[in-house]
């Protein structure tokens, strides 16, 4: 009778995943089962290297088959969960099979464009409370009014604002096939948010890797369909979520939102610096809550000072994208789930956003865009 030890002895002649250490010593063998001369062996591998590991798998199978008394041998490769980025990759692998593409190989996981989505842009700010989500929402609606097919991804998992801004209360459904989530469409824009999946007011208490995993799934496991632009509403700051977005997709650009006062601008500068570091083109800086026109007397007050973002943009050598006033109607429509660009597109307030959208579109399609990634060749 062939036993487990015979299998392991035979496998000692096969180099493990690193190409040197014999398989039994490599720690990659996940399980060996022998029953009635039929051998089953599972080898844990990093799913990123599945293609390269095929040679090892075939060799191991041949070695076991050559053993006297072995009727059949089946060696399978299993994905090893080695870290936060591994989980979504394992998913992607499952998908390729789920969609009935025989022999489909897992794609290289990182920085690959999302099929169907032309450009992904991030709306970010250095600090919270500057109106980033309101800007992202109205910018998306503005881009849609310019005739683009637009999606909104709410990446602020700890403080999702899109359900309230868009006035969406329903839950997203599973798309045909049951593998992907369907975004919810409102005002002609497709929206996905963690807020659709948890009660309003309940807290999402997650560690970094959970956030990374959720964002990767929102990008790749949502049935976005064909989009010209996906607007990503970032959480404030320069943390895990921002880095995940910058590493997972080739971002076409970033829009930085800031209020004009110095306290906000200092943080906006950090945002600019972060995107520079990861080579994400800066589409420009928006000055939100730029000025206040009194509805009673018509007098204008520069509550947070004025023009600071313009100066900062000039100092940083990035375009200035425009000023959005601090305005009661913008606040009311945002809280009421009927964003101003959708509910009153001809209002002067909406015009500020439409101008912003036009400038963003111009720098996306005419200005400095993200350059092509280098060609990768492994001989």
């Amino acid at each position, binding site marked *: 009778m062939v036993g487990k030890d015979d299998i392991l002895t035979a496998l000692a002649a096969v180099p493990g995943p*690193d*190409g*040197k250490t014999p398989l039994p010593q490599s720690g990659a063998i996940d399980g060996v089962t022998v029953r009635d001369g039929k051998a089953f062996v599972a080898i844990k591998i*990093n799913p*990123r*290297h599945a293609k*390269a590991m095929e040679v090892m798998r075939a060799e191991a199978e041949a070695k076991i088959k050559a053993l006297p008394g072995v009727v059949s041998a089946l060696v399978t490769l299993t994905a090893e969960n080695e870290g936060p980025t591994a989980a979504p990759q394992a998913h992607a692998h499952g998908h390729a099979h789920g969609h009935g593409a025989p022999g489909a190989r897992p794609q*290289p*996981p*990182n*920085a690959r464009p999302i099929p169907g989505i032309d450009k992904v842009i991030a709306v970010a700010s250095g600090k919270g409370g500057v109106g980033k989500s309101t800007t992202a929402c109205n910018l998306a609606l503005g881009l849609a009014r310019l005739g683009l097919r637009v999606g909104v991804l709410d990446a602020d998992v700890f403080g999702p604002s899109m359900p309230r801004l868009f006035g969406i209360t329903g839950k997203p459904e599973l798309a045909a096939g049951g593998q992907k989530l369907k975004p919810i469409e409102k005002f002609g824009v497709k929206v996905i948010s963690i807020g659709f999946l948890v009660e309003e007011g309940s807290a999402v208490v997650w560690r970094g890797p959970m956030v990374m995993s959720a964002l990767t799934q929102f990008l790749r496991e949502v049935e976005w369909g064909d989009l010209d632009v996906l607007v990503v509403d970032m959480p404030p700051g320069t943390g895990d979520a921002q880095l995940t977005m*910058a*590493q*997972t*997709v*080739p*971002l076409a650009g970033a829009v930085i939102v800031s209020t004009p006062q110095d306290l906000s601008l200092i943080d906006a500068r950090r945002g600019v610096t972060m995107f*520079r*570091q*990861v*080579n*994400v*083109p800066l589409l420009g800086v928006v000055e939100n809550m730029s000025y206040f026109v009194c509805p009673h007397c018509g007098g204008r007050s520069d509550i947070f000072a004025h023009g600071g973002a313009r100066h900062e943009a000039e100092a940083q050598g990035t375009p200035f994208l425009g000023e959005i006033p601090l305005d009661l109607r913008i606040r009311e429509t945002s809280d009421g789930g009927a964003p101003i660009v959708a509910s009153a597109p001809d209002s002067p307030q909406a015009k500020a956003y439409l101008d912003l959208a036009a400038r963003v579109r111009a720098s996306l399609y005419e200005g400095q865009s*993200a*350059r092509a*990634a*280098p*060609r*990768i*060749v*492994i*001989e």
Partner: protein
Amino acid sequence: MANETWPTELRVREKGRVLQVTFEDGLAASISAERLRAASPSADKSPPGAGVTIIDLETIGNYAARFTYSDGHSTGLYSWDLLRKLAAES
């Protein structure tokens, strides 16, 4: 984001022993896997294995590449600037 530092091609040659990198301005250089591995910017400072080779390579966002080496090291993200620096020194 200096223009000249953007690479146009990363080519792994000689069974993973050499990385050939070509930049937009035409600069091309070969960097040995050992040298690349030793220059890894990772916080994981495990000593390189002898005769280390590159077994995989992927791009990270718009700004870096990650190499997986035969000694199991794969946590270094090599920015275009770092690759440029290594190329200029060879």
